[in-house]
């Protein structure tokens, strides 16, 4: 029951994404209004997501997915990388991978001089081992560099179907703050 409610929420939340122009317009609007730089040079979020696959004339299928998405800051509010992982649906495990790009759109308010997080949108094009060609993206809330909550929509171009997912991700690797700052060797010239 709870899962069904969540899936219905996901479907309704992602309806605007069915119109790519509307989605693109939203990204541009957000960027123009509040775009700011990503803080981290490199991130590796490990994401677990679940949702449904909806195709005309077929029952909705549950999909669970685990991916890792190493990304590097390109400069400004953009970062790019790849997504790779696997998913489970219709009692089958499959792999997927492909390029990903993300755009930071909103900086959340600061607390004691520190950022509390950001909202960013992403676009990716993932190729599945079962022939899937998933084109889409999502909106993500990065909470204090600890967790990322995501809503995503992708269109399977190979087998026309819509994938809606909700995900939670953990930053596997972040630039560690050194516990002791080392001095540079003294230049004696």
């Amino acid at each position, binding site marked *: 029951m709870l899962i069904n409610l969540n899936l219905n929420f996901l479907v309704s939340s992602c309806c605007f994404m069915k119109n790519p122009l509307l989605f693109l317009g939203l990204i541009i609007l957000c960027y123009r209004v509040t775009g700011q730089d990503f803080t981290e040079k490199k991130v590796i979020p490990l994401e677990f997501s679940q949702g449904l696959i909806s195709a005309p004339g077929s029952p909705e299928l549950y999909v669970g997915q685990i991916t890792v998405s190493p990304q590097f800051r390109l400069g400004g509010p953009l970062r790019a990388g790849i997504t790779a992982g696997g998913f489970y649906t219709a009692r089958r495990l499959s792999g997927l991978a492909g390029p990903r790009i993300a755009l930071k759109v909103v900086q959340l308010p600061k*607390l004691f*001089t520190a*950022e509390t997080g950001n909202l960013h949108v992403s676009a990716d094009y993932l190729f599945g081992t079962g022939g899937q060609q998933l084109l889409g993206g999502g909106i993500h809330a990065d909470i204090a560099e600890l967790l990322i909550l995501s809503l995503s929509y992708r269109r399977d171009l190979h087998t026309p179907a819509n994938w809606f997912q909700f995900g939670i991700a953990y930053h596997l690797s972040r630039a560690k703050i050194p516990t*002791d700052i080392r*001095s540079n060797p003294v230049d004696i010239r």
Partner: protein
Amino acid sequence: MKALVIGGGGSKGAFAVGVLKFIHQRVQPLGSFDIYSGTSTGSLIVPLALLGEIDMLEQIYTSTRNEDILNKRSIGRLLTDISIHDATPLLRFIEREITPARAARIMASPKRLYLSGVSLQTQDLVHFATKPTPATDAYRIRTISTIQQLQRAMLASSCQPIYMQPVDVFSDGREQFCDGGVRENTPLQVAVDAGATEIIAISMGPKLGQNVFSTSLFSKATAILGFTIDTFSTDVGQNDYRLPDFIVEVNQYLAAVKTQLLRSGVSPAVVETGFSAATSPVKHMPLVKIDELRPDINLGTDEFGGDGGLNFDPVKMKRMLDLGFEKAKQHFGNPGRGNLIAGSR
């Protein structure tokens, strides 16, 4: 002996540099003090002040940006790291500015230099000194003897705990140090104990009665936590002046009594005998004057240096520097060099 003492405040140090600019132009050369003592941003300023590098200080405090000082991170680092932000860029900045040649001149100078920090292991207030100095009940002295120790002491003194990581100044794995402002924001006492007779002290916060922390009612715990931290810090800053002010009053009182006795016909020998009959508690503290300079407004707002002075914005820093220059002009009037006059105690 004259001392220059500069407190903490991050980018608000631009105010202090504005004061120094006026002092150097109209009061006395910046490098002509006998004792230099600093905390936090004051620790970044006083070594260059000792060298008389006013142009360099002005350039630094009107052009430095956030990324020159900190790798700023998210609040979540409180749960996973040693600090919220990373101060590695600040050490690189210090290493660029305090070159081996400048560091060698500082270390070789006969002038006394004190940079304050607090030990995380013992909670002691520690003054990093370039010359051997006796410790007191109130603080420890750690003598620094190498260029790297000088650079790292400047860094440690500037690293506000929680915001920036503590520093192992001597790289021996025994003791970490953080911003001396935790215990003493404007490090006057070490200058008093070192024999200063006159002190020019610069603090970055307004006097208690002039400070307005908030103009609205609080509704969030985080805001009240910010208020609590700021209140502790303000209290530390106010306390720094109490004992030195009292010493000035005592010395002025003793001098007035002596003068009165002599004018009344008491022989100088009797006066001296009388005053030496009991040990004066201020015998080794001949301080007679403190010139205290502070901004009249709170520079910790977004309009200036932000929370903790952690916002380094060249435009805002230039504004604070101009405020400091004007404050010094108002305080000292327009004296010739070496003639401190107005606003002193």
